[in-house]
């Protein structure tokens, strides 16, 4: 495993919006970073060069949009790492990781099927799990009244907020009032 310190500084240099350290025993993660979509391929390539593999792509729908979470792990010295990209609510789209991890193609197609997130640059963007003639909204999307705010989901461990616009996404409003 690349040391947490070096991952953290790399995420910071890579333009991370929020970097969080986690308690592995509770969160199952060592470190996570919310990043702008323009940094995604560069940071993912760095992880690949360090021996990390892409475990899965997990989409989380929230009030603010679609939080696409990429989980990485190192075969040699495990320590799970997550990169998160927030795609906007209308027409969500993020860059594809196909050119870095070939295995990303299926994960991304699956996420497209279920959430309607577009991964631009995917090498075979056809339905994977759903039938090709499926019509209707993506099946894992929630109704608007069921959506939670990102700040209420406890995603960010011990966060260091590097971009002020994420302050409201990370910290629940009540906490700010008390402060």
């Amino acid at each position, binding site marked *: 495993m690349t040391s947490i310190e070096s991952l953290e500084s790399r995420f910071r240099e890579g333009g991370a919006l929020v970097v969080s350290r986690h308690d592995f*025993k*509770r*969160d*199952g*993660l060592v470190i996570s970073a919310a990043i702008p979509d323009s940094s995604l391929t560069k940071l993912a390539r760095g992880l*690949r060069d360090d*021996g*990390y*593999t*892409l*475990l*899965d792509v*997990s989409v*989380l*729908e929230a009030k603010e949009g679609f939080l696409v*979470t990429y*989980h990485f792990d190192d*075969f*040699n*010295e*495990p320590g*799970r790492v997550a990169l998160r990209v927030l795609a906007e609510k209308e027409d969500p789209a993020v860059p594809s990781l196909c050119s870095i*991890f*070939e*295995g990303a*193609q*299926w994960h991304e197609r*699956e996420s497209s099927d*279920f959430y309607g997130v577009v991964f631009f640059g995917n090498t*075979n963007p*056809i*339905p*994977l*799990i*759903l*039938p*090709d*003639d499926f019509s209707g909204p993506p*099946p*894992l999307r929630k109704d608007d009244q069921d959506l*939670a705010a990102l700040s*209420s*989901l*406890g*995603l960010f461990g011990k966060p260091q907020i590097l971009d002020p616009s994420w302050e409201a996404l990370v910290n629940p409003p009540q906490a700010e009032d008390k402060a």
Partner: protein
Amino acid sequence: MSGLNFINPFGVREDPGSLVGDFYTDNFSKSARPDTVILNLGPQHPSTHGVLRILAELDGEYIIRAEPVLGYLHRMHEKMGEVKTPWQFIPNMGRVDYLHPIAWNWAYVGAVERLAGIEVPKRAEYLRLISCELNRIASHLMWWGAFVMDLGGVTPILYAFEEREKINDILQIVTGSRLTLSYFRFGGVSTDADDRFIKLTKDFVPYLRERLKMYKALVTDNVILRRRLEGIGPMGVDLCQRYGATGPILRAAGLASDTRKDVPYGVYKSFDFPIPSGPTNDCMGRYLVRLAEVESSLTLVEEAIRDLPDGPIKIDKAPKANYKLPAGETYFAVEGARGQVGVHLVSDGGVRPYRIKLRAPGFSNLSLFAEAAQGTLLADAIAILGSLDLVIPDGDRYGSAWGGRGTLDWPLGGASQK
């Protein structure tokens, strides 16, 4: 003839305006060479063990390109996870990978326990380990029989089933079922082991060790089998990394990576057990790794049943039906028979989880097939496919990645071999 729009029965588009097959065939044949044949294997082909479909572009007997088509066994477990309470969702976990359901039990229950901060009593931890390892042995035996059957040897699966029945008899005592096991509960397990469970388990270990010797003499050393497997379908660590392949595929590639050892959960830390890896990264290597893992699991079962402590099998205040998970996110992974099984769980503090993502090892393992099959003989591609140990509901997981390789598929496979 000039007025007819001729369609080659093998699926080659001779007229670009014609549509052959369905959406996937059509999409696949867009980039086909004019002198090749598109072959559609499955979704009901016996060597795909269930409902996996593969499109292959063939030049003679050689595969130019192959592409798996998924979704025929998709059951939307993730959606069910969001509309059921955690307690109600446990039975689903027996149905993702029906050959190693205990691993999925563990991954989900473990994720909930991690989020809720629940500690499991010692005796329950031991029972979890014993049942998980017995189940792993059953899964590997089932794979072994079905794999050899893919290659044309019909007899071994009958032996595999005999041993598997014995394991089912043992697990039935505590779980109450034989296929879709739902044994784990939050904070423990559902049923305590009785004397019969302990005796049958203790008897089973030396029994299977003897049988493994016979398997080696009858099957592993068989020259026909070796010629079908040696040097076929090499998969290196780099390939595994690019596709996220784990489990026996990664270990055969030479990396002794195993979640039980690397990120110990349960009581695996208290046991010293070997993680077989190598010696070769071809089909034979994956075959040998799985058989070695059976022996490794036998060691674990033997030691755990010997040291089985007394005590409760569940915590007193175990979460009940209307339990509210604390808000937060967690990821919990265990080592299943096919590789790393992961559950990504997000809760907003309500009665039902906000989001559940299941990471099925068979999904990632199958995704490398297109690359691994390129340029191989069709018959070798079947060996490569078999060596991935797919269970289609696991791959489809939603069905599990090739969750496909199951008892339910077996009668079909057997009939086809006539």
